[in-house]
């Protein structure tokens, strides 16, 4: 068997192998309801990872995603009584603007995205604290159900989060593979100078990529806020590193132009499986983090396609 030919398929082979391994350890894991529930629960994280994919796809990173999501949970909770469904629009817009701001600072002011997004994240976090009055807020349950109940409901045993996640992955996949914007993103990621020399508006494309990342982070925050029926400036804490890990494990390396949203889907599922495998293998509490790190190294070592990395930095 030609190893070169398998390489592009390694991410999902890894995923499948993990599922099988955990399934052998405990058949309960393989029950459809369990797998569906697991998939539904990972959706907010997945949406943030989707956004992160765009930032990483052009060779940057978005460290503001978590703070943007945090802010969105607060905004959503505050705006819900006044604006109803319009809340969603406000949240998405807020995310889009903050992401765009990161993009602007990165491309126009030449601040590396690692720093610019971290800084913009600080601004988002301050905004969240200010808006929330520095306390956890909660949504009125009936109001939430009337307005956003469709987000968290069930149809034929399938939680609606899965539909939302599926819709977004299809939409972003379409955007990535079938639109001029997606093509331009790939060009910018794989060869920015050539994209400039082809007359593409590279600055705008990069700003849009960050804006999209912010927008999806805001959707993640909104969904999470609805799911938890409340908001707080720290509610989405703990999203950031798993989201980055999900993108990377899926096979979108930080060098840009390689990978994409489908990779992130697989990567997120790998993260979800690794996480729940801790339970199924009954890993001791004090060992979990170390095991997670080790499995992560193994998974990344397996999934990244090194042929497309010129220099391993």
């Amino acid at each position, binding site marked *: 068997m030609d190893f070169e030919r398998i390489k592009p398929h390694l991410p999902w082979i890894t995923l499948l192998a993990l599922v099988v391994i955990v399934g052998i350890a405990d058949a309960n894991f393989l029950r459809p309801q369990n797998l569906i529930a697991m998939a539904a629960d990972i959706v907010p994280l997945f949406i943030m990872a989707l956004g992160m994919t765009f930032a990483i796809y052009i060779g940057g990173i978005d460290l503001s995603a978590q703070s943007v999501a945090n802010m969105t949970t607060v905004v959503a909770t505050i705006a819900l009584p006044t604006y109803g469904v319009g809340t969603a629009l406000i949240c998405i817009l807020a995310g889009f603007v903050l992401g765009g701001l990161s993009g602007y600072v990165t491309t126009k002011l030449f601040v590396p995205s690692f720093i610019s997004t971290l800084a913009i994240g600080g601004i988002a976090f301050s905004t969240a604290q200010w808006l929330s009055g520095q306390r956890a807020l909660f949504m009125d349950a009936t109001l939430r159900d009337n307005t956003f109940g469709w987000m968290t409901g069930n149809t034929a045993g399938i939680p609606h989060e899965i539909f939302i996640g599926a819709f977004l992955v299809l939409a972003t996949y379409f955007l990535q593979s079938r639109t001029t914007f997606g093509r331009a993103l790939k060009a910018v990621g794989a*060869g920015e100078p050539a994209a400039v020399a082809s007359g593409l508006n590279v600055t705008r494309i990069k700003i849009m990529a960050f804006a999209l990342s912010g927008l999806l982070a805001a959707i993640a925050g909104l969904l999470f806020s609805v799911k938890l029926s409340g908001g707080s400036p720290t509610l989405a804490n703990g999203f950031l590193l798993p989201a980055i890990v999900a993108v990377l494990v899926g096979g979108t390396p930080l060098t840009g132009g*390689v990978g994409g949203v489908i990779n992130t889907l697989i990567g997120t599922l790998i993260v979800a499986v690794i996480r729940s495998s801790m339970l199924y293998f009954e890993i001791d509490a004090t060992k979990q983090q170390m095991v997670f790190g080790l499995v992560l190294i193994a998974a990344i070592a397996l999934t990244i396609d090194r042929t497309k990395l010129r220099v391993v930095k």
Partner: protein
Amino acid sequence: MYELRKVDKKFPGVHALKAIDFKIGRGEIVGLVGENGAGKSTLMKVIYGAYQPDGGDITIDGTKVRFQNPRQAMDHGIGMVFQEQSLITNLTVMENIFLGFEQQFVSFGVINWKAMSAAAKAQLAKVKLDIDPATITSSLSFAQRQLVELAKVLTLEERVDGDLVILLDEPTSVLAREEVELLFSLVRDLTSRASFIFVSHRMDEVLELSDRIYVMKDGEVVDVVGHDEADVDSIQHKMVGRDVDKEYYREQKQKPYQADAPPLVSFENVSAGTRYQNISFDLHPGEVLCLVGTEGSGREAILRTIFGLEAPSEGKVSLKGRVMSRFTAQNAVSLGVGYTPRERKVEGIVGGMNVYENMTLSQMRNYANRGGVLRISAEKDLAREWIDRLAIKTPDVYKDCGGLSGGNQQKVVLAKWRSGGSDIILLDHPTRGLDIGAKEDVYDMVREMSDDGVGIVLVADTLEEAIGLSHTIIVLKDGIAQKQFACEPGNKPSLFDLVHHMI
């Protein structure tokens, strides 16, 4: 003294070197020529230790050797001066010279900068370069850097007992003519200490410098010619395996341009800081306008201004009668400007994207509906059409352009602009690094575009190329236009005419 016997190298699907015999004597300068893909670079990599041969022997003075990496080759006196600028620009000159061999200046873990500086000075003296070894490399000119690279390789002299073999890979590509002369005289002087293997696409230079010339084709050495019996035509014939058109630059196909038509590009007293001053010209449909000058004479800056990458500080630039106020590449592209950059792999094509994606990159709007959704089948049709038209060698439209040969990459870039309807084409060293066959294809395309009424601004690889191809030549020196030549077929200026104004 250095010899390859029946050296073989295979890659998956390619037999890159077929039983190569190669020999170089003490103090000899050996030329190595061949089309791209003939196996020159593989052979060089075998020689300097980057590749290990699959079969055959390498001997030095009759002793068999085997190099695992370039470092081991260096220890045997084999050094490489690279084609691309291979100095690390954020380091000082002396650090570059002794990179990887600093240990000689280290005592108790501390680098003795004074000693290194003195040693670097001695190396620089060998190449007659008088600069402070503590200079940061980025502040040197290209020619100076080339000499520093040579000086760096010459450190082998002190390090290695025995003879040196130095590979020069396209050392002249960034040099102006007088710098080339300097380099050549230096190399001739140095034959007392080292043998040289000289690789270049510039046939005249190879003929001028080499004692013997190895001609390669399809992974084989097809001939070895001595200096005296060598002539360009026969060598080219052997390289290509067919007759090279006597009318190399397609002069016979040159037709007058439409001088009465409104100009496509018009410069009126345009200046851009210190890069160029007070430049005026008109580019007409069908005209090939060549900017001639040394590196840094302002040629590239003018191209960049037309393409919108650099705003001028003074003067009026018009494209198709429209006076430009905002200088962006998007603007230029939408007005029909196409740019074929010198750095083909970096700026020309996007490695990692396939043929049709590259071809439509500048004109995605034409292959998408108003919502920005691409019509991919139409893109593929376009790509197939142009693959046929320009005879691009690619298995299919899905091939990653990064994996195409240089000539085919160039064709993809040209197809990108031509298919998008660009009628102002900027060609920056369009034949750089291409083999003869691919060069001729490019020349044909230039004529074809010219016939179609496309205006072309050319910065040529060689002066011959500039003379052969152009209708008009503007000679630049230090950012100022020195003289303009009209070049009707049969009445072209001579090399001397141009050089006279360049320097």
